């Protein structure tokens, strides 16, 4: 090496001197952005080296983390899976609790909106084992002042009525059970009928003459004639109406989700449920009778005479007393029943 250098010493010196002057030039010359050429070169020289170093380190690191560092991954993976399962379970519990809280909030709001009517919230704890029987059990019974023939509703609409009472539970007959019958009327025309179960998911409304003009979506409410439900509780809407002999065949879409009941309300009396708005309206009419007299409100549509219902069918249960066999117009207004103690 030394021999080679001494043999080519002039050439080596030439290269050194020229290189030194090139570097001197590069130190003086400035390119665009006022960057010295020597810095350009330094960056250009170092960048590939840095790139190579980064590439090497990343690959070595990748090999380390991808192979060597995976010794405990299986155990960690197992532990994380368990954590995920636990968290999923916890998440479902929380979702369930949230849904329950939402339902209870709805019930509470409903109860607060009808403070005048005594009612009791209850949870559905079971259903009938008979597939043809549409009944369910609630967690309220005799100890909670629940009695036979009390109405059961949800904030959405009518559910059914109490048919059997036990010390801490009660059995509810749903409105779509074949033994059920609810005095009903159309909210718009006030035409009376009876909503009866047939064993199908959808109950039917009977005793409506063929001349009655009906549209799908017509609202059906309780008439109060059965002395179980207060008047004007929402039952459902007309789903399909077909002419029949002698009465129309009307399929009713229940307002309450009868197949997904979890929380219900037991009506402890038949007192009519007045919404706050209607109460305020009545208060206003009392305060300003003069105005009412000057501009009488539109009279309610005339009630058609109540349809005579089959008493046996209308009875919620064989042991239940016959509710009404007279037309609604002749039936005295149902008095609120005090809860039986």
């Amino acid at each position, binding site marked *: 090496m030394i021999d080679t250098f001494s043999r080519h010493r002039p050439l080596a010196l*030439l290269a050194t*001197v*020229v290189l030194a*002057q090139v570097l*001197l*030039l590069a130190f*003086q010359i400035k390119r665009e952005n006022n960057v010295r*050429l020597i810095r350009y070169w330094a960056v250009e020289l170092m960048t590939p080296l840095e790139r190579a170093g980064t590439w090497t380190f990343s690959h070595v690191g990748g090999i380390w983390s991808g192979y060597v560092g995976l010794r405990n991954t299986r155990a960690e993976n197992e532990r994380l899976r368990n954590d995920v399962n636990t968290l999923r379970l916890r998440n479902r519990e929380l979702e369930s609790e949230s849904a329950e809280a939402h339902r209870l909030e709805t019930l509470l709001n409903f109860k607060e909106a009808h403070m005048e009517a005594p009612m009791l919230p209850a949870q559905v704890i079971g259903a009938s084992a008979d597939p043809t029987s549409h009944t369910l059990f609630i967690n309220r019974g005799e100890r909670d002042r629940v009695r036979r023939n009390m109405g059961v509703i949800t904030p959405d609409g009518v559910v059914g009525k109490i048919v059997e009472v036990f010390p801490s539970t009660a059995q509810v007959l749903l409105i779509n059970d074949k033994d059920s019958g609810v005095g009903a009327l159309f909210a718009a025309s006030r035409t009376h009928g009876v909503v009866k179960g047939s064993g199908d998911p959808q109950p039917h409304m009977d005793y409506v003459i063929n001349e009655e003009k009906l549209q799908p979506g017509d609202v059906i409410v309780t008439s109060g004639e059965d002395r179980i439900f207060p008047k004007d509780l929402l039952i459902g809407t007309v789903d399909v109406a077909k002419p029949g002999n002698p009465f129309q065949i009307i399929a009713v879409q229940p307002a309450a989700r009868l197949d997904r009941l979890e929380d219900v309300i037991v009506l402890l009396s038949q007192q009519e449920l007045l919404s706050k708005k209607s109460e305020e309206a009545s208060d206003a009419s009392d305060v300003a009778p003069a105005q009412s007299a000057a501009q009488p409100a539109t009279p309610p549509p005339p009630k058609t005479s109540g349809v005579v219902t089959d008493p046996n069918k209308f009875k919620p249960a064989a042991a239940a007393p016959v509710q009404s066999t007279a037309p609604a117009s002749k039936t005295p207004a149902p008095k609120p029943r005090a809860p039986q103690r």
Partner: protein
Amino acid sequence: MSYMLNVSAHSEPNVEVHKFYGGTIVGTVLLALVFQAFLHKYGRWSELIDLPLLVTIYFGVSRRNPISGLFLGGAIGILQDALSHDNPIGMYGIAKTLVGYLASSVGARIDTEHPLSRFGLIFLFFHFHQAILAVTQRVLLNHSAPFFTLHLFIDSLVTAAFGVVLFALLDRLRRNS
């Protein structure tokens, strides 16, 4: 012409190395730089004749030592750069370093005493010098410096002719061996 290009390995030991009186080289170099600066006042004349280049070639081929040739060329070039106001230092330095080295190497191999030989050498070194300058300017400064033009050709002829005369004058400063 035949002896001008008498390149031979056998001729190298017989080549005479010329020596100068003390201070001759330094004085000549400084004078060349001063005259070049003086010529710069006259514009075109400074481009026509490159006195530092001629001095570099002369002392290179006379001393016939590549190491001293490249250092002398480098020093002259850097001084020339330093005296010019717009050249970055090293521009002429690189070119004259290479010229000094080559002149010394060539001077050790061929006869450089004949006027025609000197004319040819100066002509070639002029264009070599210009080529190095052009490359340096293109690569480092991003300037489009020309490698060859008619003006450069004329300049090289004038410089070579002037160099033959100057070399004859400088021969008188040699110390008799």
